[in-house]
């Protein structure tokens, strides 16, 4: 439980902050995402960091229980898969990402999801 709380206290506020940024500053986020996707080195570099962070979470916390702790494990798996994909095929990450951000409602939808998920994990991490 201690490890779940520590990871939740780190990951929750980061997700919530990204979500709030996406909702309140959408034009800048869209431009930033386009710049990010235009440079393969940044995609690769972010992949390395995501893979390390994901593997770290999965190695210290691989818990599938019927409570909020499964969300932390799921974040670990998402980071691991996204990181591996960005490292192996950065040009496909660029292709998919460009198609996704062309969708007008993408940042709103993802922003709401991240605020909800981040807020929930933060509440569990600091409120328990």
């Amino acid at each position: 439980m201690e490890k779940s709380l520590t990871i939740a206290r780190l990951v929750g506020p980061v997700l919530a902050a990204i979500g709030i940024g996406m909702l309140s500053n959408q034009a800048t986020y869209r431009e930033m995402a386009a710049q990010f996707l235009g440079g393969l080195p940044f995609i690769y570099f972010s992949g390395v960091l995501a893979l390390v962070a994901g593997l770290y979470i999965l190695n210290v916390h691989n818990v599938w229980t019927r409570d909020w702790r499964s969300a932390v494990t799921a974040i670990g798996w998402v980071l691991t898969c996204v990181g591996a994909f960005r490292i192996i095929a950065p040009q496909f990450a660029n292709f998919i990402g460009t198609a996704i951000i062309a969708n007008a409602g993408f940042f709103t939808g993802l922003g709401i999801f991240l605020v909800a998920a981040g807020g929930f994990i933060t509440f569990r991490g600091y409120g328990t």
Partner: protein
Amino acid sequence: MDRSHFLAKLIGPVCIVGGLGMLFNTAAYRAMFERALHDHMFIYLSGVIALTLGLAIVILHNDWKWHWPLIITIFGWLAVIGGILRMLVPQVVESYGLSLLSTPNFFTVDGGIALLLGIVLSYFGYLDPPRRSSRPRRR
């Protein structure tokens, strides 16, 4: 889980994935590395992260005994040295990196080494329990 196994579990898969990318996606990797080497800010930023991660490894794991965790210690020191060079002299890293990239088989050799290292570290990290590796080899 001791520190060697934990670090091997983190570093091993990253080396495997990076090695596979170099071996099977060589054209994109070449273009990506050439672009990255022309960006001094990017070299500097990667240096900051390499130095931080390298110092974390070296501080937690500075084991120089002749057994498999030595790979992790060397990995940590290479990250420290590489990080310092990238932060201090990014232009030298650029010219050295571009000369390496001009070698025809660079990605095949580098990818092969990374893949091999990754497999070795993942094997010891995920399949070798701590008790077994700490057992004395000679009586």
